[in-house]
């Protein structure tokens, strides 16, 4: 039987079951090596792609994309390994860019290879997202040339990269006219293109297996067929809620993993753990409430209404805050055994820190909510 002929709820159930099997099986075996040795789980990511776990949100022949399902799949993986959950997000948003670009050269074979996992990629939008929220300035600069643009600059810390990977990137178009409105382009940056080099980063506290590099770009030619959006701002306005919303899968999964660890020691340590705040039942209730809210938001990922986006930003902030509390509390619950370097409990503390600081970080989310909430008046 062709899976495409199955009813959507059966397909969704199969997809989640396959994802869970990969997470609880091969991923669990590799998670230490990913975290401690910086192993990049390429084969596993490709298996997740083949199961459809990183493309459920994309429109396909079977119907429109299902963001709720994509987020649930990401949560299943993040529950076991936050770093792999993060790479799923990288791959998922890169797919989103390719599909939403409407660029035939990108949304055809390139997207198909991406969805199948044959090709992997990430997103270099941390800096642009902060730039659009007026937090920092754009690091890549583009100069118009016949047939396209020449792009130069360096981006720090772009994940899920490799010599044959790619990422979505944004560059500011340079003009002579100082009074001109800002103009940016978004394009597919291929790591093997002439002028692009990857540089190793120093060690991070967590996320070592995420293939994170500094991307140096020198006089890279970006032609028509690589352009995802020109100008980039309307495109970003359309996909920004989806971009942020997908990250909730990491927060939900890592929080769930932390709650699992609390229950694990309840039979032996419940008699002392009862004195802790943030007990697993209360955290689970809060997580269920948040998940429900995210599932609701996931029904309309392309809603461009300001209030909707504020809701998405706040759900993401709540996810990060809950993740921090749950990971911390799991360590309190497990005590010394959770403090062992081999324990997933201490690893999850470091993963939760990542959820709180990766773009958009808690502070960025709050700043952006404040900016969007302020009444707009004439200049």
């Amino acid at each position: 039987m062709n899976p495409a002929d199955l009813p959507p709820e059966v397909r969704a159930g199969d997809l989640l079951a396959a994802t869970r099997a990969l997470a609880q099986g091969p991923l669990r075996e590799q998670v230490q090596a990913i975290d401690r040795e910086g192993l990049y789980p390429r084969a596993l990511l490709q298996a997740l792609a083949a199961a459809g776990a990183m493309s459920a949100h994309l429109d396909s022949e079977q119907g429109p994309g299902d963001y709720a399902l994509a987020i649930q799949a990401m949560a299943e993986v993040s529950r076991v390994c936050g770093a792999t959950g993060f790479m799923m997000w990288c791959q998922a948003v890169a797919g989103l860019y390719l599909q939403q670009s409407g660029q035939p050269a990108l949304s055809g074979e390139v997207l198909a290879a991406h969805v199948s996992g044959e090709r992997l990629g990430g997103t270099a939008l941390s800096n642009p997202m902060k730039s659009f929220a007026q937090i920092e300035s754009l690091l890549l600069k583009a100069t118009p040339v016949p047939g396209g643009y020449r792009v130069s600059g360096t981006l720090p810390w772009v994940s899920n990269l490799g010599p044959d990977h790619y990422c979505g990137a944004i560059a500011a178009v340079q003009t002579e006219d100082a009074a001109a409105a800002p103009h940016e382009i978004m394009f597919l940056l291929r790591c093997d293109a002439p002028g692009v080099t990857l540089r190793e980063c120093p060690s991070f506290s967590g996320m070592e297996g995420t293939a994170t590099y500094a991307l140096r770009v020198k006089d890279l030619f970006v032609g028509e067929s690589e352009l995802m959006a020109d100008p980039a701002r309307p495109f970003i306005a359309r996909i920004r809620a989806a971009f942020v919303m997908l990250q909730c899968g990491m927060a939900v999964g890592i929080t769930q993993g932390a709650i699992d660890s609390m229950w694990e020691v309840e039979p032996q340590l419940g008699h002392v753990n009862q004195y802790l705040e943030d007990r697993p039942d209360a955290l689970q209730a809060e997580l269920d409430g948040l998940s429900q809210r995210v599932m609701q938001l996931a029904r309309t990922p392309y809603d461009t209404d300001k209030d909707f986006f504020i809701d998405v930003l706040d759900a993401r902030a709540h996810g990060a805050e809950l993740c921090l509390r749950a990971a911390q509390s799991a360590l309190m619950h497990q005590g010394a055994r959770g403090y062992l370097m081999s324990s997933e409990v201490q690893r999850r503390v470091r993963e939760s820190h990542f959820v709180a600081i990766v773009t958009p970080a808690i502070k960025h989310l709050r700043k952006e909510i404040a900016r969007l909430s302020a009444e707009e008046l004439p200049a």
Partner: protein
Amino acid sequence: MIPSALQPDARPNPLGLAIEALTPAWQTYICHACGYLYDEALGDPDSGLPPGTRFADIPDDWACPLCGVTKSDFSPYTAPSPEHVRRPLSQPSAPQGLARRGDAGIVIVGAGKAGWQLAETLRQHDADLPITLVSACAGDRYDKPLLSVALARHLPPEGLVKESGPDAARRLNLRLLPHTHAVRICAETQQLRTTRGNLRYRQLVLAHGAEAALPAGLAPGLCWRINHLAAYQRLRQALGESPRDVLVLGAGLIGCELANDLALGGHRVRLLDTASEPLARWQTQAAGAQLLAAWQGLPITFEGGQTVASVTRSAASGRYHVHTAGGQHHEVDQVVVAAGLHTPGRLARSAGLQWRDGIAVDPATLATSQPGIHALGDCITVEGAASRYIEPIARQVSTLAAALLGQAAMPYEARPALVRVKTSSLPLTLH
């Protein structure tokens, strides 16, 4: 005790001093991507730059050792003095005698008349009750009806503030969170999510008021709405000191007061409304006709039956072009919209509060449909009717304070409002 042989030679080395005098001081450079500081004195030995390598002498292929960007993403950096860095943190936004985390007590959203007056009343009855006031603006106390009068009298904006937010917070021993947006209510965990963190409340009071409505198709960045002090201050700044052409859209109570006071302030005013006369709600009392007669000596032109089709701004002149649906065109210096108020619903929605053109409350206690959450002021409706005047606020405060403090109920009675039009050319009292 350090043996004297190991102590640094305290005598000045003349050659060293001479070289030092000739060499510019070491400079520090900051990476814009990650904040890494390159100190010329220290160099970057791991990347092969010995101490004392000038930034200018660093090869172009050198990379930031933390994040990998190049020299071009660095700029000179001067470390601010510690006093300078710490100053912003000593601002009095810190809690006054209250724990930062944990119990925020009674949390009031909104530092307008309703919010402050409730806080004042609660404090009179209970000296120890923890109170937290969350305000999207600075939280300064002022009388909103005076915003318009101030235009006529050229009052300096700062003169409108009766008491600054921090001063009032100190006097009432409450915690004021200024410039803080309330984002969402988590009713299950009794938390208010804000842009400065989350507050756990015993009781939550919504007093966030209403927002000025903007007719569809008009851009917020092109039309003033004067509903709070900060907007007034910015309009005053935009008007400057010389007479301007101002178009006021909407000839209800607020629009007429603004038109009146702008004209008295020396500006040329064009007042438009969809109705055929100003104050059309009080047509039976001939309010509009009386007002127009009184305005005869003022530079106010009223045009009824007008709908604005578009407002645009000329990039060259900075002036605004207003086109009406009827084909008229006006070129003015500023556009002010006074097209009524509407209540923002996001917070109420987040808690699933019953909504009837505003937050529906029980007049007996001003309780909303959700336990532990109350509301008063411009954001509430009783039996579906809002009352956006000053008079009911004091009575609502009494009702709510009694309910929050567990005293004998003092039900609120919604009454038809007596409206005083503060158009100084012709003060009117309308029913």
